[in-house]
C-alpha cells in the first residue's frame, strides 16, 4: 500500500513517522543528542494523533513509563542515545523478564562515558547481548537508510508484540541526522486483540492478571528462562540481511547500519575497478543472520568485518562461521565519519590477503 507522496526527513523523523504509522499511542522520552528530533516531533504529533507524550524526568523514568504503558498492551516507544540507553537498561531488563513489548530507539553516539555526540557503533554489545542485568536478549534492527528507519520501526512494533519482547532500533548519529526522501506507507491497522490474552486492562469479567519478573518458587525462574530462550530461538524466523555483489565475490565485507551503507559505496567503487568484493549487511543484529554467512563461507569466500568501533560484531561474525572461515577486522574509530574512500585500502588489503 505504497503512498505516492514522499517526505523529506531526517532518520530520527522517519522513526517517528514509522512509529505513528505502526499505531504507537504513547511516547516517553528525555532529551539527548543526537536523537532530539524524536522527542521534539513526538511532542507535536503524538497528542495530535490522540496519543500521549511525556517528557520524563530522566531516561530511567522514561523507560519505566514505557514498561507501564506496555503492560496495558498499548503500542509505546522510547528513544535515546548511548548514555541514556545505559540508564534505560534497568527497565529494559524488567520488560524482557516480564515479557513486555515495547520499542526502544538507540541513536548510537561515541563513548564510553560522555564520549562525543558523533556517530559510533560502540553500543553493539550492549544492544545485542542483553545490556541490562540477567539473561535476556532484545530483537535488534539496524537501519542503513531513512527509508529503512521508517520501515524497520513499523516492523519493530509488530515483532515486539509477536514475541512479547522489547525490540531495539539501533541507529547512529549518521542515520539519525541525515535527511533523505522517504516513501511513507500505512501498514494494516493494529489488531485490537493483539494483547487481549495478557494485557492489564482491569479485571472486569475475568480473573486478575499479573505481570512480573520475580520468580521465587522452586524451578519457576528456570522455567521462565527456558521460555525466554525458546522465544529467542523462534525469533530466528525474522532474520534479515542484505547481500550485495556477493555471488562472485572473493572477499565479502560484513558491516551494518550506516557503516554498512558507506561500505556499500566503497564496494561499488571497487567493483568499477574490477575488484571482486561484496557486502553482507546484517539487518537483524539479534538474532544474528549467521546462516547467510555460513553459506558464503561454504562457497569459499573470505571475510572482512568493518565497524565504527574497536571490534564488536566481528565476534558474532566469527562465531557464525566457526570451523568454516575467519574474518579480518577493520575498525574506524569514533570521533570522525568515514567516507567510502577510507574503506578502500583496508578492503583491498584484505582482498590481497585472501588471494595469497
Amino acid at each position, binding site marked *: 500500500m505504497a503512498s505516492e507522496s514522499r517526505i523529506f526527513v531526517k532518520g530520527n523523523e522517519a522513526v517517528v513517522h514509522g512509529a505513528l504509522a505502526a499505531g504507537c499511542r504513547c511516547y516517553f522520552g528525555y532529551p539527548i543528542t543526537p536523537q532530539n528530533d524524536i522527542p521534539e516531533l513526538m511532542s507535536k504529533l503524538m497528542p495530535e494523533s490522540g496519543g500521549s507524550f511525556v517528557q520524563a524526568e530522566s531516561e530511567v523514568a522514561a523507560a519505566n513509563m514505557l514498561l507501564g504503558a506496555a503492560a496495558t498492551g498499548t503500542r509505546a516507544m522510547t528513544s535515546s542515545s548511548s548514555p541514556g540507553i545505559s540508564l534505560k537498561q534497568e527497565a529494559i531488563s524488567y520488560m524482557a523478564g516480564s515479557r513486555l513489548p515495547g520499542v526502544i530507539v538507540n541513536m548510537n553516539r561515541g563513548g564510553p562515558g560522555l564520549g562525543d555526540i558523533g556517530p559510533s557503533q560502540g553500543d553493539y554489545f550492549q544492544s545485542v547481548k542483553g545490556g541490562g542485568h540477567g539473561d535476556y536478549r532484545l530483537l535488534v534492527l539496524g537501519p542503513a537508510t531513512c527509508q529503512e528507519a521508517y520501515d524497520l520501526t513499523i516492523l519493530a512494533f509488530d515483532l515486539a508484540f509477536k514475541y512479547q519482547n522489547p525490540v531495539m532500533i539501533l541507529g547512529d548519529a549518521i542515520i539519525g541526522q541525515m535527511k533523505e526522501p522517504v516513501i511513507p506507507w500505512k501498514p494494516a491497522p493494529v489488531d485490537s486483540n493483539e494483547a487481549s490474552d495478557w494485557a492489564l486492562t*482491569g479485571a472486569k469479567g475475568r480473573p486478575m*492478571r499479573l505481570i512480573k519478573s520475580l520468580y521465587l518458587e522452586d524451578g519457576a525462574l528456570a522455567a521462565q528462562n527456558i521460555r525466554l530462550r525458546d522465544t529467542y530461538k523462534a525469533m530466528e524466523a525474522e532474520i534479515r540481511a542484505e547481500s550485495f555483489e556477493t555471488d562472485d565475490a572473493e572477499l565479502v565485507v560484513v558491516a551494518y547500519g550506516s557503516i554498512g551503507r558507506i561500505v556499500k559505496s566503497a564496494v561499488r567503487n571497487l567493483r568499477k575497478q574490477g575488484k571482486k568484493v561484496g557486502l553482507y549487511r546484517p539487518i537483524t543484529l539479534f538474532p544474528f543472520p549467521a546462516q547467510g554467512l555460513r553459506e558464503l563461507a561454504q562457497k569459499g569466500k573470505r571475510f572482512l568485518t568493518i565497524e565504527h568501533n574497536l571490534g564488536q560484531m566481528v565476534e558474532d561474525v566469527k562465531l557464525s562461521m566457526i570451523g568454516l572461515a575467519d574474518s579480518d577486522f577493520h575498525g574506524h574509530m569514533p570521533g570522525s565519519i568515514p567516507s567510502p574512500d577510507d574503506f578502500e585500502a583496508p578492503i583491498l588489503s584484505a582482498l590481497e590477503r585472501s588471494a595469497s
Partner: protein
Amino acid sequence: MTEQLVFDRPEVIADRATHYCPGCQHGVAQRLVGECLEEFGVVDKTIAVTSIGCSVFLYNYLLVDSVEAPHGRAPAVATGVKRAKPDNIVLAYQGDGDLASIGMAEIMHCANRGERVTIIFVNNTVYGMTGGQMAPTTMIGQKTTTCPGGRCAEREGQPFKMAEILAGLGGVAYSARVAVNNAKNLVKAKRAIKHAFQAQIDNKGFGFVEVLATCPTNWKMTPVAANERIECELIPYFPLGIYKDRLNEGEGC
C-alpha cells in the same frame, strides 16, 4: 442463637494467609485499599503497580490487575499505565526505601505533573525485606543494621517528611499522613485513602497517603510495643493530618 457475620473480608482481598510478619501493618493498609476500591465500585477497572520489598506482594493479596515495577520506579510505571489507559484507576503501593530514597525523582515528578494516580506510601522507617537497613525515614537515634549506633542527623540527615513535601507541589490534589495504630486512626486512614482515590476519580490530580506502619521484626519489638512506638515516637515527628486537599476545587487543565 444463630451466628451473624458483621465484619467480612472484602472480596478483592484474597482469602489466604499473608506472608507478613506478626504485627506488621501492611495487611491492614492493603485491606483499607481493598475496601475503598470496592466501595467506589472500581475493582474491575483498577490496575495496581507494585514495588520492591515487602510491598511487592500486594499482588498476592489484592486481586486486581497488577504489574511489578523496578525499585523506586512505581510512579513512572504508574504514569505509563495511566497515560495508556486514562479510564482505568491506577494505584501504586510503595514502601519508604522505595519511594523516598531510590525513587525520590520519580515520586516528585509524578506528583508535580499531577498524574491522575493514587499512591499509598507505607512508612515503617526501615528497609524491611532486605533485613532492616536505614531508610530515608529512619528516625534520629533509631538503630538499624546500617546505622548501628543510631541515625545521626549530622551524618545521615533528617528523616524525610513526604506528605508535607509532596503537598507543596502544584500537581498534588490530596496529600495526607495517617496511622493504623488504633481504631480512631484507622477510621481516619480509610477516609484519607478514599479521598486520595476520589482525587483520581474526579480527575483533580495526584493523590497521596502516607501510612505510618509497624515493622516489629526489624524494630526488634513485640507487635504491641511497635504499635506504641507509632504513637510515642513516630507521630510526634511525622504528624498525622491532611496536608493538601483540593477535592472541592475546580479541575485543572
